């Protein structure tokens, strides 16, 4: 979607959304690591 045909700047997700998503991915990753993956 975003890396094939160059989209116009307006079509790209906003910096805020991207940062939010990245942060959410990192937080969930750490949470799952500590609670599920590492203990077993």
């Amino acid at each position, binding site marked *: 979607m975003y*890396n*094939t045909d160059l989209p116009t*700047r307006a079509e790209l997700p906003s910096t805020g959304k991207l940062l939010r998503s990245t942060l959410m991915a990192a937080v969930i990753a750490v949470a799952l690591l500590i609670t599920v*993956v*590492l203990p077993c």
Partner: protein
Amino acid sequence: MFPSQVRGVLGLPMMNRRHALAFLTLLLMLLGASGEALAHAVAEGDKGYIQEIYGVHLLSFMYLGAKHMVTGYDHILFLLGIIFFLYRMQHIAIYVSLFAIGHSATMLLGVYFNIGINSYLIDAIIGLSVVYKALDNIGAYQRWFGFQPNTKVATLVFGLFHGFGLSSKIIEYDISPDGLVPNLLAFNVGVEIGQLLALSAILIVMGFWRRTTGFLRHAYTANVAMMCAGFMLVGYQLTGYFIA
């Protein structure tokens, strides 16, 4: 600016319910897929077998290569990221070949010249490649840096790192030097067969998924979930590095 975004994340109402559901489903699927694969070395029985045999064993090594690829969570995730927005078969062929050339080169050379990188570190880098590709797919580099980094070069370069991951693991098995080169080539052929098997499964599922109306909306979420899995791989390997 940033603290308010943090609150937005933790106070989930910003995300609509359907997104949340899709996200959770994906995470559950990823978790279900992990299990054995998270350890991601060759199973003990296989390692013992490799150390016992010497001489040329083409089929055995081919099987081990294919098995490593199909059960290898990290390589498959990166491959999924690469083909996520490739719609035409010829594009898929180009990118998958670039990845194959990259990982074959470093795998063969790495084992032949005995270049082993700490397998925790190289696996952490492989995890980072998944994060990189997920961010690339959601347009983060275009938004943040104003241009699209070359996707073919990235595929080749990360292919080289994936190959070092493979070679580091093979070196740990301590293969007999007797028949090393044919065995390695067989392992490599097995890796490519495994990759093609996994790829066809992915393409079949993607084909159906792309036809659904919500694909583009879910694609964003899916790439964020993929990034999350990438972070998990990095964290898992770094923990191993500091504990072991």
